[in-house]
């Protein structure tokens, strides 16, 4: 078990190094930080001083190593746009994005999985057909359109829910949460639905497809032939067998939620990292973009690790060589 986790973490190191390299290359070669930071008017002495201060006069790999080392300590340089440490900017924005993504993910799983199970078991029921049509909308409508339609209905027409921002937040040390105030929670609803709708419908369709597949399998037929109850068959035997592929996709999709909350955050002016990224791209604020890239890589690596651990818990076939670290799926 421990060896398994360790091997997984070791496998992630090259991934992070490569992403770090790309983001460093961006940092070093895209745009000219010196001109951006000094503006139009500067003396040669000022330029040399700044180049030296930024370490740009050192060999490439030394710069890369330094950059990675600093990144490891949460130091991603100074934002060109805001003239503040990128680490601080991200730390301020991270809670908003994580709370939004988490809410969307929970919503997508808690609604998507049961809907998928239902439509898989009661394939021909009217409710199933309605779910399927609804899911087509969820998969095909672009996120910004869903967001705008929701705002139109619930904020503009009905006036029930706020259309932008996080509402009231409560601060704990470096974390700000909207979970604890009524306005914070209300503000979360529309963005969370907008962000999670695609994932929810995708999960539903996937679970349905997997259920249909598993329900045709021999072991389900044999479970029926043994007289097990419908409940035991559907939830004990069938659902569990759909979990391995479903966990994979859910993992990837949750990574996607964090990475691609950009559109939703823009539509709802949600003060998270996505909004920060959009604002940074507008002015080519490379340090912020580079840091964002690395952070997303870390998120994906963590999710992958969790997915692998869940596989391990669900499927005894992966536990076969106890003690020996076996990779692969």
């Amino acid at each position, binding site marked *: 078990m421990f060896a398994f986790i360790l091997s997984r973490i070791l496998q992630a190191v090259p991934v992070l190094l490569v992403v770090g390299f790309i983001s460093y290359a961006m940092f070093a070669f895209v745009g000219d930080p010196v001109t951006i930071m000094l503006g139009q008017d500067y003396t040669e002495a000022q330029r040399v001083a700044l180049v030296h201060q930024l370490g740009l006069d050192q060999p490439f790999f030394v710069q890369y190593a330094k950059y990675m080392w600093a990144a490891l300590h949460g130091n991603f340089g100074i934002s060109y746009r805001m003239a503040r440490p990128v680490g601080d900017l991200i730390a301020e924005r991270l809670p908003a994005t994580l709370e939004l993504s988490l809410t969307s993910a929970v919503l997508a799983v808690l609604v998507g999985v049961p809907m998928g199970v239902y439509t898989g078991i009661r394939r021909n029921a009217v409710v199933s057909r309605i779910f399927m049509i609804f899911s087509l909308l969820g998969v095909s409508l672009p996120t910004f359109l869903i967001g705008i339609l929701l705002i139109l209905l619930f904020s503009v027409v009905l006036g029930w829910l706020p259309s932008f921002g996080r509402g009231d937040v409560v601060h704990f040390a470096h974390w700000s949460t909207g979970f604890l105030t009524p306005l914070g929670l209300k503000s979360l609803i529309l963005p969370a639905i907008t962000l999670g709708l695609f994932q929810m419908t995708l999960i539903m369709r996937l679970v349905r497809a997997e259920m249909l597949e598993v329900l045709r399998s021999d*072991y389900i037929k*044999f479970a*029926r*032939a*043994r007289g*097990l*109850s419908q409940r035991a068959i559907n939830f004990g035997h069938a659902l569990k*067998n759909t979990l391995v592929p479903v966990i994979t996709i859910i993992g990837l999709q949750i990574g996607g939620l964090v990475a691609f909350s950009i559109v939703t955050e823009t539509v709802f002016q949600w003060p998270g990292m996505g909004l920060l990224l959009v604002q940074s791209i507008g002015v080519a604020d490379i340090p912020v973009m580079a840091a964002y890239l690395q952070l997303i890589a870390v998120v994906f690596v963590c999710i992958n690790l969790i997915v692998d651990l869940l596989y391990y818990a669900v499927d*005894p*076939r992966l536990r076969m060589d106890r003690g020996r670290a076996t990779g692969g799926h």
Partner: protein
Amino acid sequence: MSLLDVQDLTVEFPTRRGVLRALDGVSFSIEAGEVLGVVGESGAGKSLTGAAIIGLLEPPGRVAGGRILLDGARIDDLPADRMRAIRGKQIGAIFQDPLTTLNPLYSIGRQLVETIQTHLRLSDRDARARAVKWLEDVGIPAARERIDAYPHEFSGGMRQRVVIALALCAEPRLVIADEPTTALDVSIQAQIIALLKNLAREHGTSVMLVTHDMGVIAETADRVAVMYAGRIAEIGPVREVVKHPAHPYSEGLMGSIPSLTHRVERLRQIDGAMPRLTAIPQGCAFNPRCEKVFDRCRVERPDLMEAGRSRAACWLYAAENAHV
């Protein structure tokens, strides 16, 4: 009264191009403690017959006619939950491929205990003890330690033993074994058949044994039913059907048993193929392939009739022919 009585069973599949009649008037019975062998070419309807008996026809397949009686009481029209109580408890089933019939995610012990507790009111401890006992009975070595192992940790033959334990653990009175050894290594087929036969005898369980292996039938079955194109062509005592097949189709089948005693090749193929369900010929379904075909065969369809000690669906045995 027979344990199982199948009367005039008809199974149909509604399709876009009309109704396919896959089983057409199948009638037979199985006595308590008896082993009935069922043979026939692929597609003859052997598996469908078994599925109809345990009430697990895959939709859109449905029982369109006839009756199925267990101990004289109809079971083909029971509500789903009452039929469920019969499956596993009164009628067990053994499937073909042990590699796919066990749920890969649960230990064999869990699957056994779950089945036992579905049908018998036993505490967890008693159910587990019974599971161990069954694993021992089907010949799993070190059953007490192996009970928590997962299916993938067993070989194919061992898994089929587990499947047999699962099918028998609630002591059903009839077990339907649909080609239980086809997917197994030839070297262990005989062991599995012997195990099934012995357990059935010990517990007084009746067996409906579907197989392509005439050798297995000859060794194991008391009676044998030969199926052709969704109907029973011949049914009778096993020695009779094997040694003196009445129906020309059975004759052809028996002709294709490789004989160990006569090293001479007795393998004789019946020419042609079984008709598709959409193109069953008028009269006797076997007539295009039959060497003894005569006029009546192409017009009227024969039902089962007395043919020596067996019963055969063949006009050769019509009463009016007998005294011609």
